[in-house]
């Protein structure tokens, strides 16, 4: 396990570069992101461990980042003051562009993985915005009317994007639909809806709505999305049949789940980071069904495969390495630690 300290700054998000296997970036904030500056760290993985290649300081906390999918040296960061900033590693100190439209903290940014020419952002102001790096204003605004902690493009379609918000809903937008009163919204899934009742099985307990904090699209199975948040469980949904409720419910985290990421290598493996200071690896039960979990909330035969306990404060960011042998990942937390580790080393824990 490799470790780096973002001295004085609590990590909020970590992302591997889609271009280089040895580069990652961390969005961080002083004073746990409550008040003060932010810092974007560009880190290199070397034979001598993790080294800081560069950093950019910002006026307000940084909560998320996304690497450009077309330019290997560019990345965007989401800031607490409502701005989104585009940085170029080749240019010192200042962002090459800044967009200021969101009225509250921007909590997520995500680059379009298919067309690669746009990115989206979501904010506590109840809006998702679509941007082009070449335009000074946003292209589209999609209202959710609810503090939206996470927004992401489909890995398959350039015009599908989804978001989860504090109203316990997953929303799906299709930008190909005509702009109308629905604002491209084509689906709204209540995340807390119970799984279908099964004969011979006790009814699952009624779950009240809770804030959803993170979600991610499966990289192999079209239409499969996982979401998680304050109710501590991770749920997977099939967007073609959302009324059936979750496909699986993964229970185990002891506090809210802050970040989840599907494996880029395997279709049924998930990684999560939680306020309970752990990062956990899960099998969602879509392939080999595990033994029934003892947890009353669990459903669908998924199970925890392993758990990483090295963070000593809230673990809030995880990302998988796209390159090399499957299993390498990075995590960040409020303990100012960036950890690069292999999930295979924590299996069975």
């Amino acid at each position: 396990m490799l470790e780096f300290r973002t001295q004085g700054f609590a990590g909020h998000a970590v992302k591997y570069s889609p271009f280089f296997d040895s580069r990652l970036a961390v969005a961080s904030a002083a004073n746990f992101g409550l008040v003060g500056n932010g810092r974007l760290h560009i880190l290199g993985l070397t034979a001598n461990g993790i080294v800081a290649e560069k950093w950019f300081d910002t006026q307000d906390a940084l909560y998320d980042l996304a690497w450009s999918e077309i330019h290997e040296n560019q990345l965007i960061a989401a800031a607490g003051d409502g701005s989104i900033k585009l940085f170029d590693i080749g240019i010192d100190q200042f962002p090459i562009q800044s967009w200021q439209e969101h009225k509250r903290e921007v909590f997520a940014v995500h680059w379009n993985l298919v067309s690669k020419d746009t990115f989206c952002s979501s904010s506590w102001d109840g809006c998702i915005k679509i941007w082009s790096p070449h335009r000074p204003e946003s292209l589209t605004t999609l209202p959710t009317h609810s503090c939206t902690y996470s927004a992401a493009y489909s890995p398959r379609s350039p015009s599908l994007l989804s978001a989860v918000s504090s109203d316990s809903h997953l929303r799906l937008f299709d930008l190909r639909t005509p702009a109308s009163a629905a604002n491209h919204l084509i689906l709204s899934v209540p995340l807390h809806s119970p799984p279908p009742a099964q004969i011979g099985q006790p009814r699952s307990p009624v779950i009240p709505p809770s804030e959803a904090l993170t979600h991610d699209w499966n990289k192999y199975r079209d239409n499969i999305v996982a979401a998680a948040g304050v109710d501590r469980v991770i749920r997977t949904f099939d967007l073609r049949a959302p009324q059936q409720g979750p496909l699986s419910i993964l229970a185990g985290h002891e506090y809210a789940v802050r970040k989840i990421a599907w494996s880029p290598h395997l279709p049924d493996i998930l990684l999560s980071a939680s306020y309970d200071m752990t990062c956990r690896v899960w099998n969602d039960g879509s392939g080999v069904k595990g033994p029934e979990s003892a947890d009353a909330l669990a459903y669908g035969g998924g199970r925890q495969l392993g758990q990483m306990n090295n963070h000593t404060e809230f673990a809030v960011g995880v990302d998988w390495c796209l390159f090399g042998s499957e299993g390498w990942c990075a995590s960040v937390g409020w303990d100012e630690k960036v950890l690069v580790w292999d999930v295979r080393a924590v299996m069975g824990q």
Partner: protein
Amino acid sequence: MSGPQARLSSITSQLSPYPPRGIASVVTKSADDVVITSALRTPFTKGGKGGFKDTHASDLLAHVLKATIERSGIDPALVEDMAVGTVLAPGGGATEFRAAALVAGFPVSTSVKSLNRQCSSGLQACVDIANAIKNGMIDVGIGAGVESMSLQYGLNAVSEFSELLEAHPEGKNCKVPMGLLSEKMAKDRNIKRADQDAFAARSYQRAVAAQKAGKFDKEIVPMSNVKWTDPKSEEEKTITVAKDDGIRDGMTVETLAKIRPAFAKDGSIHAGNASQISDGAAAVLLMRRSTAEKLGQKIIGKFVAASVVGVEPLLMGIGPWKAIPEVLKKAGISKDDVDLWEINEAFASQCLWCINELGLDQNKINPNGGAIAFGHPLGCTGARQVSTLFNELERTGKRIGVTSMCVGTGMGMAALWVKE
């Protein structure tokens, strides 16, 4: 809220315990809540003397059911099931109650059952219906309770105990009369007569004040054309019963102190500090919130949780003491979160003991008097408490209420309700 505070409170809310605990969790509204849209009762009248002494339990029930249809505006065909709590009726009253529902205007498609969990039968009826709604068995139902103690109180209420039951130490205790065991409990737990009388006097005084202020008017459905035989002249009259007739003005600790103990020479329990023998009926209309909204029914409040516990048969009076913490635990709130308590006054002794033992605020308990002042028609009381509770919560603008009672043979029940 400015930046840092807003960010901090956002993090705090994400770290709050889950599932949510405390008041926030019980007052949230969701489409599958069980809500109450009507809670009514007949007047309570004195057993053997009062306005309903010659009226059958089934007629009281039919009357309160008819009023439920009229006042709530519910289409009776939408009511799928009805549970009626009653204690003394032979055969559980099952046959009469089905007929009473038909008389009240319910179609043959509305099913009816009777049930008996002694003094908590009325509450058990409401809880049974609430559970059936929660489970999706029905969408709309009525929990009711009725008792004609005038016509059905007596030796037939319990059949003779078999040798098998008599041979079992706790089994045999189940048939000890309530008065005797309460007397023993009062002595064992050192509940002084003066305290019991003070509690009883307050019940009377509160009920008198409430009745004068018209506080019961909204929950009571007056009944006219009631046949009543004058015990002196034996002349049959037709009367209208619009008020509880057991409430006596001028009851004080001093007047109560003069009454002779009823169960033991040196005892502390007497007619003035125990619940009255009464006749009456009550009905509560329950449905799923989504159904209520679809039908445009006015939602009074919601049912949150209920508990039922067992205690030693001889200590049946401590039932609420055990049942109340249980229901609060289920709902995840503390006793301080509760704005109003309706705890049945079976006996001043047991009610007072439970209140003191739980450390509850006297001012929040039965603020309009209780069974000592206006009566305890056994199977009806649990349903009656719902109407009294919601009306008082509405008047005071409060939200969280608990109803509870002790149950003969050693049980206790409690339920948590939220006014909306």
